[in-house]
């Protein structure tokens, strides 16, 4: 069982990375994950890697969910996992989703690139959110069990 002391399915940090100001999906993700029973710390749009990590450390979050819609995802996400390691949260769950690169690209290529960068799961823009919530619950459960 979880030893985090809260009854939620887990604590997640949410935000849109870099200089991306796409705010609509972010607001919807917040409402959705709240309704699903996660504790959501939403940083909104235009969030830097360090701001994500600061929030994750401060709140002892289980996962960071990074969104990127504007195409600069590759540049903005570079070194994210390394930065997490440096800051002492090497085992945090890292998800990324959205329109992650410039232009229409086969999703398998995008997924491979971001997984190599240390993201645990990579999602296309049209992903079924129910599926994401299910995977997230599962991953958080596994992480907590592995840890304790």
């Amino acid at each position, binding site marked *: 069982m979880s030893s985090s002391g809260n009854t939620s399915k887990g604590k997640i940090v949410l935000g849109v990375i870099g*200089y991306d*100001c796409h*705010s609509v999906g972010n607001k*919807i993700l917040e409402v959705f994950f709240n309704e699903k029973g996660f504790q959501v710390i939403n940083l909104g749009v235009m969030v830097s890697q360090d701001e994500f990590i600061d929030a994750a450390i401060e709140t002892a979050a289980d996962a960071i969910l990074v969104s990127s819609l*504007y*195409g600069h995802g590759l540049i903005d996400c570079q070194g994210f996992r390394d930065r997490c390691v440096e800051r002492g949260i090497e085992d945090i769950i890292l998800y990324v989703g959205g329109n992650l690169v*410039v*232009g*229409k690209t086969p999703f398998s290529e995008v997924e491979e690139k971001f997984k190599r960068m240390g993201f645990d799961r990579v999602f296309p823009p049209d992903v079924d959110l129910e599926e994401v919530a299910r995977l997230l619950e599962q991953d958080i459960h596994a992480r907590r069990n592995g840890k304790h």
Partner: protein
Amino acid sequence: MKGLERIRKAEFLQERETVLTSWPTGKEVDLREAITYQKKIPESKRFSLAMEEAKKTRTLLTQPRAGVALPEEHIRLLKYLETEGEADLLPTTIDAYTRQNRYTEAQEGIEKSLAAGKSLLNGFPAVNHGVKVCRQVTEAVARPVQVRHGTPDARLLAEITLAGGFTSFEGGGISYNIPYAKKVPLEQSLKYWKYVDALVGYYEEEGVRINREPFGPLTGTLVPPCISHVVGILEGLFALAQGVKSITLGYGQGGNLIQDVAAVRTLRQLAEEYFTSEGFTDYHLTIVFHQWMGGFPEDEAKAFAVIGWGTVAAVFSGAEKVIVKSPHEAFGIPTKEANAEGLRATRQLIHMLTDQSMPESAELARESELIREEVKAILDRVWNLGEGNWETGTIRAFQSGVLDVPFAPSLFNLGKILPARDNDGYIRILQPGNVPLGKKILDYHRERLEERAKVEGRPVNFQMVTDDIYAISKGHLVGRPRSNLGPKFRAHREVKERSV
């Protein structure tokens, strides 16, 4: 006229010094030389003249969005859109780093793009490239070229691109802040854009006309026409106050044809009314219609249908220009081929609709009157809040939520307004927040939403809003609940059709 005073020339020239030293390429700008250069640009490439001609001849001009990191590639892209896409007007869309004045990151993007052999930026970093490269771009094409972006502080971008031969500049102190930034105070962005408008006013005084285009669609997500109209009219007033003479106000497609036609017509009328009542007479107003700005279907065939529907509304609304989407919209930045396909599909429909028009109807008149009343109610309150000063009124209106843009990222936007579609796909107001529309108007919005709720067998709530946001990308206009909508919904339509 309070809040519409012209910036003092000495003050403006002093501010220029700071702006031009904020990045090395600023030094390339020599205003006198730039004016001489602009005067040599052929008339066929002057944006304001193309817009005037379109109004005179009742033509709808097409314009894509397009921009990549590297100059040669960008020029190739624009030439392709000009020839293969048959675009009437060309853009240069600026990348997101430049929009936030992150020129160091933009430089990194340029270098990484060079290394990768393809653009890793979502637009053209005009500030980093500087005046000379901008001139190479504008000289390489035969059509007028506009700068399109989303920059709260576009002072340096305006200096460099206007000196670089662009003849139109998009944006405004509200429309390029509230939907495009998080932490920039409105007071600040209004000041930055006063500078941009004053710069355009300066060119104007020297005999060079630059077209200015406030960004109509805002967040592009179920924005009620009255909200974008109020923003457009205010930004129009601010621009005219600084000496801008050629102004194009915008509106983003909602999806219901009647509402879209009513919106463009009322935008034109209301803008004329407010501009003249503030004493501006010597200006040229045109309207730009944006094809659907929300989420698109991934299937390219379906995306073409959305593009087509936007074109129908653009033609029937009487706009002078349409901003065209591509079949790659769901994936982000399109290839040049996909971009040209969107343009050609749009062109075909424009030609087919040239000789047709939409008949007047009670519904069209009702929607037009509704938008007029709403805009007046909000602008009256802005005026009162500012105690007769439009600029102060605008700032206070956003502080108090009298002006509220749905789903905007800015911390300086209240974000309490919530829109949703009614049963016929009109965008209505579900929660007004503090937008002062009065009981009669709000009751009407509520009635129309309740009508939909009844048909769908669920209450009016946030789920409806979410369903509406993703509806078009999933193949519909109104976001119906997944279960149990068929027979009941169709029965309702039949009753309704019979009663008309």
